[in-house]
């Protein structure tokens, strides 16, 4: 998931009695699965939390273009190159829909990008890992997009109309991305010994960071409870992580690859896979800015933004001149 540990600004869950009449009416609508639309009244904390969540998701799409973009010029065939370029392009498109959804909450894309560039806004921890081989492009599609879909499919039903509609469009494309990732892995796993080793190595490096994408257990988190009450979070992090493991392990087996977890085993009683402990120290370090690529990713983004400033200014200046000329002509 592309939004991790989103804070709601609340310190406890309000009972209906504690709510103002407006808050109560709002919660009733959410409870009845009626979508909240931009012009309607909403609690300030709901609005702010959604901005954080949607923008974090958007930023993840934009930063996520870098690790995959890293292989566009080196993709091994013309078809793979076209597919990867189209995929990274889709991510730019997802970023765009999501910034638009966030803008309906009264914040501009420029403000959000400033927050990203200044390091104030977060994006998913996963994109701070490097793509070292072509197999990493397969692993990202298979695992990272797979994990994102786990979270995003339920979010199609989230309470905020523009976000839910953005998710519907995004999910369609993400499932295509996941299939192409798996297809890359399949080709490698059935390929030469070097290719198979490349696939296994990618799984080794991306498995645990993918499990971290769901965020630490939030069973006790007041923020998660509040977000679930607002229906902008549908499942707990642990539920989604379990679902992801259950879905992915058979896929790895089908590829003939080994999931790098000695504690992984089927638990017939639970009807789920048991798996080993995630290294949350590493996760917190990456979130705090100490991942292998945090600085590089942010620097690249800021550079593109700063180097593009004169272009954006020129486009604005030209549009203004054109409008002024049209006015003179009309007069």
């Amino acid at each position: 998931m592309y939004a991790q540990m989103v804070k709601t600004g609340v310190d406890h869950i309000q009972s209906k009695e504690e709510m103002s009449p407006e808050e109560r009416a709002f919660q009733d609508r959410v409870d009845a699965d009626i979508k909240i639309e931009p012009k309607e009244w909403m609690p300030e904390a709901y609005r702010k939390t959604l901005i954080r969540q949607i923008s974090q998701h958007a930023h993840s799409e934009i930063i996520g273009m870098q690790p995959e973009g890293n292989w566009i010029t080196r993709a091994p065939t013309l078809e793979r190159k076209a597919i990867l370029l189209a995929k990274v392009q889709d991510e730019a498109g997802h970023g765009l829909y999501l910034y638009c959804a966030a803008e309906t909450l009264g914040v501009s894309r420029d403000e959000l990008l400033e927050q990203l560039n200044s390091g104030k806004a977060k994006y998913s921890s996963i994109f701070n890992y490097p793509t070292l081989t072509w197999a990493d492009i397969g692993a990202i599609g298979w695992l990272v997009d797979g994990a994102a879909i786990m979270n995003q499919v339920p979010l199609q039903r989230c309470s905020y109309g523009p976000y839910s509609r953005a998710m519907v469009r995004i999910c369609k494309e993400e499932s295509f991305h996941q299939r192409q990732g798996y297809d890359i892995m399949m080709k490698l796993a059935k390929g030469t010994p070097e290719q198979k080793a490349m696939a296994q190595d990618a799984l080794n490096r991306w498995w645990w960071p993918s499990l971290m994408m769901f965020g630490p257990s939030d069973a006790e988190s007041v923020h998660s409870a509040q977000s679930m009450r607002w229906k902008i979070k549908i499942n707990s992090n642990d539920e989604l992580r379990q679902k992801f493991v259950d879905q992915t392990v058979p896929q790895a087996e089908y590829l003939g690859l080994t999931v790098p977890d000695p504690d992984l085993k089927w638990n017939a009683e639970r009807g789920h896979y048991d798996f080993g402990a995630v290294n949350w120290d590493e996760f917190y370090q990456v979130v705090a800015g100490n991942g292998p690529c945090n600085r590089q990713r942010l620097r690249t983004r800021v550079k593109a933004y700063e180097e593009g400033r004169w272009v954006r200014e020129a486009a604005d200046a030209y549009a203004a001149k054109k409008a002024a000329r049209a006015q003179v002509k009309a007069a």
Partner: protein
Amino acid sequence: MTGQDALFEYLLRLSDNALILGHRLSEWCGHSPALEEDLALSNVALDLIGQTQLWLSLAGEVEGKGRDADKLAYLRDARDFRNVLLVEQPNGDFALTMARQFFFDAWHYLLLRELKGSKDARIAEIAAKGLKEVTYHLERSRDWVLRLGDGTEESHRRMQTAIDDLWMYTGELFESDEVDQAMAREGIGADLAALHEPWLGLVRATAEEATLTLPQPGWAQRGGKRGIHSEHLGYILADLQFLQRAYPNATW
């Protein structure tokens, strides 16, 4: 040189222009001035990669030695590439990329319009499909030349510099050698020299509207069509061909 050899050579020129320019544009993905441009530049790159696949497949068929589009793209060395020097020039700033694109698109548009009437039905078909795409490419790159030329002082200066820097690479587009002449004679290819005036007309009108000054006609850099490239192409191929070279005979 037999007719088939000339045709193969001619098809390589068409495909390598698309392949190398598409590659250059793909380098922008994730680094462009706005998300909308990441989308648009990728679209143009994707069109060009698609055209490359069509031209190269046909080239492989004509050659008849069992080389498919990927073999031709990934396993030829720089001396066997036939693109013009213009398309391999580094991206530079956004103005340079757009000036390069505009010069190329204007020529590409005129060329495909001619090739649409090629006597070789396979060429005519690919050209007709490509023309639809390139019509849009030209509209877009022309628009950016206008916006940057007539935008701010800085953008004007950058676009003027880009045009001055690239001008010497435009002459090669209109030079015909024995391959071009043979293809034109047979009604398969286009008369490149005849494209020069319409190209200049379009470029002049655009420059004027964009408040830009075109350099005087001067010495043209040439050689790409014969495989004599700039130093840049080797690095493009080092990226492009890395996996195919490092893991021979693997399928991806």
